[in-house]
């Protein structure tokens, strides 16, 4: 009986404490300081487990062709590199002000499966600043981004710069006559 009362009192105290944090704003919501280690661990772990769980039931990913990778590069360089950089390519300077900050993705294909990357790109990640790209990209576009991420560990800084130059040359070329 005494044990039940003690547990009840303990849980009530924790509950009141949590409510006080919420109602009185006793939490650092600024982006000026990094997450405390416990918050960083808890949020990142939750994200990783949720992505793995959500991607678990997906059918196998499509086979990627060189054309997929090339189109994926154009999408990545135009939409993703500003926050995630590339080999020899920095992120935009203001990205350093984000908490949590978006990582460089040079070895992300070694940490996630194609299906997991597809989930992350398509649906975004809440409370990290990662948008859900299904709002502005087709599903085929998202797969092409994944195709590029799978190829990215093989890109040197020189390869990336050359791909960027080729893309610029192509997009600034006059449109074909019909």
């Amino acid at each position, binding site marked *: 009986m005494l044990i039940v009362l003690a547990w009840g009192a303990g849980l009530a105290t924790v509950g009141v404490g949590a409510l006080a944090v919420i109602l009185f704003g006793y939490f650092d919501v600024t982006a000026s300081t*990094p*997450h405390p*280690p416990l918050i960083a661990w808890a949020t990142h772990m939750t994200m990783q487990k949720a992505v793995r769980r959500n991607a678990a039931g997906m059918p196998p990913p499509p086979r990627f062709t060189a054309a997929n990778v090339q189109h994926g590069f154009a999408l990545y360089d135009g939409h993703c590199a500003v926050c995630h950089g590339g080999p*020899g390519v*920095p992120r935009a300077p203001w990205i350093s002000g984000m908490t949590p900050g978006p*990582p*460089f993705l*040079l070895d992300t294909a070694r940490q996630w499966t194609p299906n997991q990357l597809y989930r992350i790109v398509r649906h975004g990640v809440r409370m990290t600043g990662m948008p859900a790209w299904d709002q502005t990209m087709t599903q085929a576009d998202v797969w092409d981004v994944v195709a590029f991420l799978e190829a990215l560990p093989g890109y040197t*800084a020189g390869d990336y710069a050359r791909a960027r130059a080729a893309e610029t040359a192509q997009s600034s070329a006059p449109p074909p006559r019909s």
Partner: protein
Amino acid sequence: MSWPRAWLTLVAPGLLLAACAQSPKTPVNLGGGDPQRGSVLLVREACGACHVIPGIQEAGGEVGPPLSGMARRTMVAGVLPNTPENMARWIRDPQAVVPGNAMPNVGLSQQQALDIAAYLATLR
């Protein structure tokens, strides 16, 4: 992040302090930087996406070399003698030191680069 690594992230700063406290014989040359500010910059600049860095959140990247024991290394980037000043030079402008390598120039000030170099100089 795996359980052991998460655990390490939590206790690494403590271990680091304990290790420093135990070996006062060799004075550490931190250069003109502040290791505390450097540790925040290492998180902010996402250095851990490419490098394993003891004591830094989520720093488990396996693109570049692990920075564990950096203070004991002889060379920075294989080409500069390992001093805090040279480390800062490399961090500020890696493309000038080793053109075409994968590490980008992220636009740090000299003081910011020295702060990061000071933190790395504590990793023995």
